[in-house]
């Protein structure tokens, strides 16, 4: 019987929540938490579960990888699963980073699942198989089922079909494919030509990847003459969250007056806190300047390095927020900045 190993974060590995996101990597020689579901559906035995805190991977990636590869050195396994990570960005990043390292080191198929909005998808889809997943753990069964069905195909030596048929995110790996209906290129070319001429829809056989970069903005010539604004996706807001920014999947942003302070006071002082659900709030609550460095900027203003720190800082929450929403909020914030003559921005994220 083939053997499988599953990677989970601290939550799905039943260690705890955000408070233990720093949990050190460990391996258990049994099925823990979500690993049990894999075992039920897979044509293989899940022999081990690897558990690691999302923040541990986030801040000590190399060490996490080293230690986990170390755990696996003497283990026999035919396939490796990571996640599903749903929309959790740090978990997606961890699944991808760990999965990629395992694939490179042990050359076994590595399969994960993430929601299409998870930044881990774009980062790691070329390195491991990532299946499109749900937004939350409500989709656990569906997501694991998709992963396992594909895993079983591999384990049983079945012929693997192109990505669009198997269902995982395109990896940027292209191979030649004999069309079952044997339509020759001349037929496909004419068909495409006539459609294009007649403004009908067609599908190019080689989609040119979109080059998604923005033109680099010109550098500032003289910082001491301009106003710089702070923007954050770390969710720092006044103690009562007056704009009711969501803690995840945000669609709202706020701007907060700081012209009369040298630094952000903290939660205890009933001034600022974080509402971002994606990371342990303790450090941010104790000192919000760790996320929105008002104090440092105020000092630079004092010594004349910058002309002025803009009177507001802008805030929203980055976790779970869709690219579409983030773009919209970015546009709205930008409009205000332009209106008010802000010429540069430092954007902090968590």
């Amino acid at each position, binding site marked *: 019987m083939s053997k499988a190993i599953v990677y989970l974060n601290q939550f799905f590995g039943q260690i705890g929540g955000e408070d233990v996101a720093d949990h050190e990597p460990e391996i258990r020689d049994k099925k823990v938490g979500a690993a049990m579901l894999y075992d039920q559906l897979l044509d293989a035995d899940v022999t081990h579960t690897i558990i690691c805190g999302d923040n541990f991977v986030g801040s000590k990636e190399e060490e996490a990888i080293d230690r986990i590869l170390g755990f696996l050195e003497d283990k026999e396994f035919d396939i490796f699963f990571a996640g599903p990570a749903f929309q959790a960005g740090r978990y997606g990043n961890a699944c991808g980073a760990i999965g990629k390292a395992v694939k490179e080191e042990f050359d076994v198929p590595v399969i994960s699942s993430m929601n299409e909005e998870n930044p881990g998808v774009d980062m790691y889809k070329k390195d491991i198989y990532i299946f499109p997943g749900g937004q939350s753990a409500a989709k656990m069964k569906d997501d694991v089922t998709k992963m396992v069905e594909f895993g079983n195909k591999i384990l049983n030596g079945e012929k693997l079909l192109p990505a669009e048929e198997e269902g995982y995110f395109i990896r940027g790996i292209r191979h030649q494919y*004999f069309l079952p209906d044997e339509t020759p290129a001349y037929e496909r070319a004419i068909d495409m030509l006539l459609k294009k001429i007649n403004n009908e829809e067609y599908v190019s056989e080689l989609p040119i990847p979109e080059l998604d970069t923005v033109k680099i903005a010109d550098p500032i010539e003289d910082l001491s003459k301009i106003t710089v604004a702070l923007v954050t996706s770390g969710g720092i807001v006044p103690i009562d969250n007056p704009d009711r920014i969501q803690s995840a999947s945000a669609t709202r942003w706020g701007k907060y007056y700081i012209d009369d302070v040298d630094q952000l006071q903290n939660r205890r002082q009933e001034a600022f806190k974080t509402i971002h659900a994606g990371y342990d709030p303790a450090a941010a609550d104790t000192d919000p300047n760790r996320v929105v460095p008002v104090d440092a900027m105020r000092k630079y203003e004092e010594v004349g390095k910058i002309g002025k720190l803009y009177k507001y800082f802008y805030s929203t929450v980055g976790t779970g927020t869709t690219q579409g929403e983030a773009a919209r909020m970015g546009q709205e914030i930008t409009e205000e900045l332009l209106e008010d003559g802000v010429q540069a921005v430092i954007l902090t994220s968590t």
Partner: protein
Amino acid sequence: MKLELGNFHVEDIEFGNETTFNDGLLTIDKEEALEVVYKDEHITEADLKIVKPGDMVRLVPVKEAIEPRYREEGGPVFPGVTGDLMQAGDGRTLAMKDMSVLVVGKHWGGFQDGLIDMGGEGAKYTYFSQLKNVVLVADTDEDFEKHEQQKKNRALRWAGMRLSEYLGKALKDKEPDEVETYTLDPITKRSEEVSELPSVVMVMQPQSQMEEPGYNDLNYGWDTNNMLPTFMHPNEVLDGAMISGSFMPCSSKWSTYDMQNFPLIRRLYEEHGETINFIGVIMSNLNVAMEQKERSAQFVAQMAKSLGADAALVAEEGYGNPDADYIGCLVALEDAGVKTVGVSNEATGRDGGSQPLVSLDPKADALVSTGNVSELIKLPPMDTVIGELEALARDGLSGGWDDDEVLGSSVKKDGSIVMENNSMFCGDQIAGWSTKTMKEY
């Protein structure tokens, strides 16, 4: 101009006392045929074989494929090459169908040569496994290039053309099974109905990479490297104006057979007068220097625009740096307001992860992909090898090697082979036959 192609379907081929064609049977007088081959003293050794679809035969190194034809009104099948210059594409030419003459080196291969399996798993990788083939396998005294990776293969290729013309003569005075008529009125004299249809040009980019003569595709005998893009009648391409060169890494190559039968042109003809107004062919090229690439793209776009083309099909005989010409040409045409569809292969590497074309542009939004140059192929040994199997590993064929850290030699002791699609003879069938595409895996 009106071209009538009189087709004779060859059902079987055998050696006999006289070279004749009767009721589908091509009989070849081997001795007489070889005399024709030996006319060039540079040919030192030659033999003829007959292979048919399904035969467990492997041919390597394959240098050329030609369709035997005969001009009813007289004249060389390849004007400017096998005889004097004359206008091609206007008149009646008789053709032997369902077969070809293949030219195979007795020993020495090169970057531009390829492999054909007539049967088994490997048959699907080339078009020629579907044809009955008369195989000329020969050696020459062209010592200067015996050990060169880049070969002109001059003696062998011209011998193949001679042989094809000799066989074609067997059709003289015979009634074809069917006649295909190819005709286009002069552009400005077409009927209102036809003129109102969307007008389309076929842009061909034949390979012309080498600066030294002897390697590139020829246009009425003129080296395509020395050409500026020009306007040609499609009948000229179908009737022997273009011959293949000896350079292109083989799966991207258009053999002379491909030129004579160019499926993309024939398919456009089918639509002419119905859904499109087929203007004609813009014959471009694929020179190496950046400025020359730009100049060709400029000429193609200007000509297309001035001819009033609404759309263009662009086919690239190559991969690698010629991709820059391909994309450059597509972009220049799109910028000139001509809607384009491109046809070419990709080179995504053995792992499939490399950029498919060396140059990419979002304006090239309608592309047909006919195969992957880099696809790794493993095939079992074949009962018979015509040519020399070792050439695949030894002679620097584009898809073969003698020493790979992981895969070892392309040719294994038991005769099985591991190679890249790159060396499948005209394997990516960019001229139009390809039933392959590229998919994300």
